[in-house]
């Protein structure tokens, strides 16, 4: 019987993921909602570990979400606007109703991680190219953040590497419209290979 060997780095990656998930516990020591416990429903929330375990397309990007949060909590970024702790985390993988926001092209947006102060985090990971942030995503976030009352306070894209300069320009334009830097890119937490 042939012995299957893991790709180089896979064990380290899996270990970092498991440590990150184990770290994400709330005040009652339960793993924070969205990583393990979220049942699939008509509301469409995803279960992080289930999607990682499928080993399908995007499973590494899914695993990147708690890993990226752990790295941010551990002070792994110089671009983070303020320090954060796990107590700041509201949930992982939650959809938000933005259907009433003028001009938005979708009824919901999904926060890979949502902080209690209304910070919306979208994790972007790619093994083969620049992490991809679409112009439409930036445009939708711009409209959501321009709305009053705001369903979220700010949005951070957290990536495993630099994003395309055209996306950065789109974000700069969005922030100009918003009147402050509400959309940020945090791209210095390292790779997840």
């Amino acid at each position, binding site marked *: 019987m042939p012995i299957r060997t893991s790709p180089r780095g896979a064990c380290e990656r899996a270990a970092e993921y498991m440590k990150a998930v184990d770290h994400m516990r709330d005040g009652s020591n339960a793993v924070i909602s969205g990583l393990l416990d*979220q*049942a699939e*429903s*008509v*509301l*469409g*929330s995803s279960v992080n570990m289930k999607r990682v375990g499928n080993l399908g397309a995007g499973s590494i990007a899914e695993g990147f979400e708690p890993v990226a949060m752990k790295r941010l909590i551990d002070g792994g970024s110089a671009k983070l606007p303020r320090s954060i702790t796990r107590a700041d985390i*509201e*949930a992982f993988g*939650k*959809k*938000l*109703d*933005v*259907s*009433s*926001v*003028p*001009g938005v092209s979708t*009824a*919901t947006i999904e926060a890979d991680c*949502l902080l*209690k*102060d*209304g910070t919306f985090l979208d994790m972007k990971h790619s093994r083969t190219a620049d992490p991809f942030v679409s112009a439409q995503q930036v445009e939708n976030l*711009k*409209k959501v953040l*321009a*709305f*009053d*009352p*705001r*369903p*979220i*306070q700010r949005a951070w894209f957290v990536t495993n590497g630099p994003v395309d300069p055209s996306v950065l320009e789109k974000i700069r*334009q969005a922030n*100009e*419209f*918003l*009147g402050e830097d509400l959309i940020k890119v945090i791209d210095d937490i390292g790779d997840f290979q």
Partner: protein
Amino acid sequence: MRLQGEDLKHCLPANPSVFFPLSGELKRKAFERIMGVLDRQAGRRDTTATAAEHWSALEERNTGSKRWDRLVARYSGPTESKEDGIRQRASFHNVGNVLAQRPYTAHTVEGIQYVVDLFNPANELEMPYAGAGETVVALLLRELEFGTVQYRLVQNAPFYRIVREIAEILEPECVRGTYSMFPILVAYLEGRLNPKRPWELLFPLSVLTKPAALAPSADLSTCRTTNDSLALLWPMLASPRFRGLPLARLFKKVEVWDENRILVQVWNGLESVLRDEYGEAARTLGMSAVQELVA
């Protein structure tokens, strides 16, 4: 041609709100008593408008002739510069702009600004649901610090006192609170909700009314209607020991108002977050959740 899409968004109040559907008209005396509740809780008013001016504006609004798009045009200009952003924000149907356009009073209590308005008077939103155009008093909620209404409402004791006192004055058919009515209205326009009235749904905040008695032989597995589910669960909801029961995990707040009415709130506030808990709580009560309509 019905009001829909971006035009509907523009005409619909943008702030989270609590609704009080009435069986008759809103009377001036009741409105003045509501003003009294808010005056007492807030200590002072935020605006220079008088209660009489506010009442006159509501009477005019009740005719359906003062829909938001007749006061403020929907912004369709460029969205590039900071000045564009300021112009767009001035067009939103939110509490700040409502106070600039209508002679309403406003009161602030513990980080929430309260404004009394009407929801869909004279069916100004051109909705096809049963009862559209009935008198529904809307208590608009503006959070002065992010999260006060969306994430931390459950900690705001004055809010629950105000809602209860207003309900005692108005004696509404029910009380419902939500982040946005838009998903419900879209569901009607798309034919996904007929023939239910909006108030038959489980809102993030709902005051439930004691149902008719359940047949003695019925159990939860045979419950097919909201009435039967509620009749079975009512003794548990009303129990002083409710917090120790398994059902308690479905609600962040349960407040027994009297033997016929119980306020339930599924999560901490009136929020945009779509949590599975809303659907789970609704199914337990034999209802459907507002959040399940977002599509």
